[in-house]
């Protein structure tokens, strides 16, 4: 290892830990001791990364308050040092961190809230894609409908939450007092996406969530309707399927509709 490389490794170790080895190679300034000056880098590291997490998780910050958020943020910085040159991706593991580290893991609403904010952030700058319009559907022959397959917009993401984090998110967003955190009897099935430039989310029924998940897996509309028939009134399945599809298209959730190969 070159002297330069060794020095950088020691400098970095001094920032990431309390190792003072590098101080032996640093000068005092005319007005200040070297440890105080090196401390500027140590302090800036933690505060800059915690600030990045705070910027990405404004409502989690609001929910926890300054002191608790900063303590959590510093613990996250220690557990997940940044490995990407772009600060944009630094907080991506926060939901995992909160889910698997006490005391945060004792409050599953925290990882749910972080996961929802992360999904909205990801939708905000997800890749562009064509958006299917209702008029695109008008030209499709009736006999082709059962073979239709769908491709989700790149911003669309499904998220199941075990807690009422979505209700807490909404209350915080509207400057209202959030409800008590509770674990739900069955998970809230959320669909997150970007409409034009605005990240959105809404809760799906179990039936619509099933249809969405299967549709984006490449299942054709005809089969989707057969699956819907097992959920509720079989006679209304095609109508319900068309209704969900209409909602997805008007929300800008689909980027492609294709007609599968029809056996002659």
């Amino acid at each position, binding site marked *: 290892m070159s*002297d330069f490389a060794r020095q950088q490794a020691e400098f970095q170790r001094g920032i990431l830990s309390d190792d003072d080895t590098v101080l032996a190679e640093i000068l005092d*300034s005319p007005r200040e001791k070297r440890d105080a000056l090196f401390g500027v880098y140590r302090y800036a*590291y933690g505060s800059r990364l915690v600030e990045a997490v705070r910027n990405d998780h404004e409502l989690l910050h609001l929910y926890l308050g300054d002191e608790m958020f900063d303590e959590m943020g510093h613990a996250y910085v220690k557990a997940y040092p940044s490995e990407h040159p*772009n600060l944009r991706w630094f907080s991506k593991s926060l939901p995992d961190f909160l889910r698997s580290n006490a005391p945060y893991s004792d409050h599953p609403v925290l990882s749910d809230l972080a996961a929802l904010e992360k999904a909205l952030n990801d939708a905000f700058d*997800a890749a562009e894609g064509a958006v299917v319009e209702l008029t695109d559907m008008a030209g499709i022959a009736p006999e082709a409908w059962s073979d239709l397959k769908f491709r989700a917009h790149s*911003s669309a993401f499904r998220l199941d939450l075990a807690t009422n984090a979505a209700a807490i998110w909404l209350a915080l967003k509207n400057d209202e007092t959030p409800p008590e955190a509770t674990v739900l009897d069955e998970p809230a099935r959320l669909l997150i996406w*970007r409409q034009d430039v605005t990240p959105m989310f809404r809760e799906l029924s179990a039936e619509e969530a099933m249809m969405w998940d299967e549709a984006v897996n490449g299942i054709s509309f005809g089969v989707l309707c057969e699956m819907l028939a097992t959920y509720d009134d079989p006679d209304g399945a095609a109508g319900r399927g068309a209704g969900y599809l209409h909602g997805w298209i008007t929300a800008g959730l689909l980027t492609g509709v294709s007609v599968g190969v029809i056996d002659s």
Partner: protein
Amino acid sequence: MNVASRLPDTSAAALADRPAKSARPPFLGFGLGLRHQHYDEILNGNPPIDWFEVISENYMLPGGQPLRTLDRICERYPVVMHGVSLSIASTAPPNFEYLQGLKDLARRVEPKWISDHLCWTGVHGKNLHDLLPIPYTREALDHVVSRVQLVQDFLGRAVVLENVSTYIQFNNSEMTEWEFLSELSRRSGCWLLFDINNVYVSAFNHGYDPLTFLNGIPADRVVQFHMAGHSHMGTHIIDTHDHPVCEDVWDLYVAALKRFGRVSTMIERDDNIPPLDELLAEVVRTREIAEKVLPTSKQAG
């Protein structure tokens, strides 16, 4: 792609100075750092700003509003890309994924130039997201020269490198920062972004005269000035870029104009972002001072 095949050739022949022969970037006038807080005001009001500098990493994204906004800004104003993660002085292997992202963004933006900092941001797979200092040694200079050559070859253009604010000095430095920057520019062909606030900050922190730094930089290599504010801690100054430009830095700007001539100048505010009007007033001041120190009519004559 075989990354190893793109690693720098460290043979003696390859280490020979190979300055890039890119044309000197043009004089753009008086600009401002683009910040998202001002998007609407800029797009709705077309403020009289000659050009914008954008933080490259803020737009190295898959899509969405930031890139769409950037496209609209690029339709109306000259744009320069300024990065914070090139880590040109790192001893870690070059990050070609990052460089490709930078190149892709440049293809979209068509910037007048691409700049970053003479610093490193991490080694061993970690990124500290800070502009970290280096020892001014011959070993470090050889390394950074070869890295700049590699980056310039990859991007197909000469880059512009900025002096950073530093809080410490290494005891093994063999030259001054300005000697290092001068040699780096001469040997690699990179241009220099002279951050006047950073010179002021480093000079205070290390106890030298900022004019010594200024006069030690070759007059023909500087193509951009940054003007910014800082936080004074008594025994040292921290480069927070979150305050208005202070009077001492305005004075240093006058000296810089006298030495480097008319150089593209911009106000850089990174935090505590004020209303656009406040920053526009500082941009106007950069223009007025330049006009006073170097009258356009006299230049033209």
